[in-house]
């Protein structure tokens, strides 16, 4: 049991709980949707994380069949840590996807990030929902061609995935070039540097969240 109640789980679990509470506070009406997505993605990522059990064969034997050891303490610990890290990334992506583009830009400007870096981050974050919607569209078009994906062989399913990735790649290149052109036309990246006149007024909640994040960071160093 010590492998599960390890103190090294404390910080990741605190971070995950912090992000989940943040989602609940910022979007209370969408929290049930978040929980559904969390369960769906979490189950999928759990399977991936459990692969650690096969490769990490160190520490105490926790479970064995006959004389053959199956689960080692280090493998289980790594699997749990990996799953929590995946879910932290998922919660972060969920939060970022719901922040208004311009507010994010104003905030990063306020935080002292250069405009180029802010825009780079922004375009990267905004690419995620774009890719999701394009993947759905690609699937629609593949089925509209008359292809019944569930009837395909495993080899053809892999091929279908490759074809979907191809159209995603082409559409992403298109999206990025249009975004870059739109930014240039608005004067971003000009020689003398673009300035955003509007400021982001930090509220008590922002200070509270930053303080809590700082506290968790310090706690992480101490433990």
């Amino acid at each position, binding site marked *: 049991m010590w492998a599960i109640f390890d103190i090294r789980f404390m910080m990741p679990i605190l971070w995950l709980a912090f992000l989940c509470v943040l989602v609940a506070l910022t979007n209370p009406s969408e929290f049930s949707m978040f929980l559904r997505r969390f369960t769906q993605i979490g189950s999928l990522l759990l399977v991936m994380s459990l692969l650690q059990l096969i490769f990490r064969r160190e520490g105490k034997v926790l479970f064995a069949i006959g004389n053959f050891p199956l689960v080692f303490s280090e493998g289980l610990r790594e699997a749990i840590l990996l799953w929590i890290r995946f879910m932290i990334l998922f919660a972060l992506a969920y939060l970022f996807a719901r922040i208004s583009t311009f507010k994010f830009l104003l905030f990063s400007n306020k935080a002292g990030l250069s405009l180029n870096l802010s825009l780079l981050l922004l375009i990267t974050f905004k690419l995620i929902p774009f890719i999701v919607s394009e993947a759905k569209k690609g699937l*629609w*078009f593949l*089925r509209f*061609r008359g292809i019944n994906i569930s009837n*395909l062989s495993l080899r053809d399913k892999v091929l*279908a995935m490759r074809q979907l990735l*191809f*159209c995603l790649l082409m559409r992403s290149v298109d999206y990025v070039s249009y975004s870059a052109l739109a930014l240039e036309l608005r004067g971003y990246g000009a020689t003398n540097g673009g300035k955003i006149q509007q400021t982001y007024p930090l509220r008590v909640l922002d200070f509270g969240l930053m303080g809590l994040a700082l506290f968790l960071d310090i706690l992480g160093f101490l433990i």
Partner: protein
Amino acid sequence: MFTYLSKHFPRSHHYLVEERRQDDIDNFFIEKLFDPFGKGSKHTIWGEQAREFSIIGSRLGWVPDHVQVVFFRETVEHEIADALASKQNRLVGEENEIEQARFLLEQIGISDLSGQNPYFLSQGETKLVWFLSQWAKLPDYLVISYLPAGLSQQRINRLLAFLLNSEKMADFLKVSSPTFVLGYLDHDKRWYENLISEPNSKSRWIKRNFIF
């Protein structure tokens, strides 16, 4: 859906459907086919089970103007060949289908595009390639929202000639030609009058009011 289509558009003829606006048919198909797909497989799409969407796709072709279409292959000829192969639920076209794709591209006057990436084409070229990929899957009905949009007069004429020769083309491929349903605007007579007056066409073209 197909009961509705066969009731209003019996397969013995081709149809011209009058639109009030150029995007009437597009909006209808977006609402009936495109948007409901995102709701999940338990929903219905225009009266059909969403999980059977591939059956809808195999029997219905659509050439939209206001939806950005998606291609899956690196070259135009492979894209058309794959569409030809889709009738047998195959993802990738074989050598004979590539030959047929080249033949179809030649018929519509864009054989010079055969080796190009379909994502690097002009609006009109994209429309023609998409039209061929829809025709090549040999559906029961092929709906073109508004044929002249994005096409030069020369390409409109080539496309109309293709539509009129569709039966011959289908005979060559040993399949049956789709029933065409074309949207038109009453004031823009320059292209569709030829279809109605064309004496060589096997099937008659009939005008209809917008009934979608």
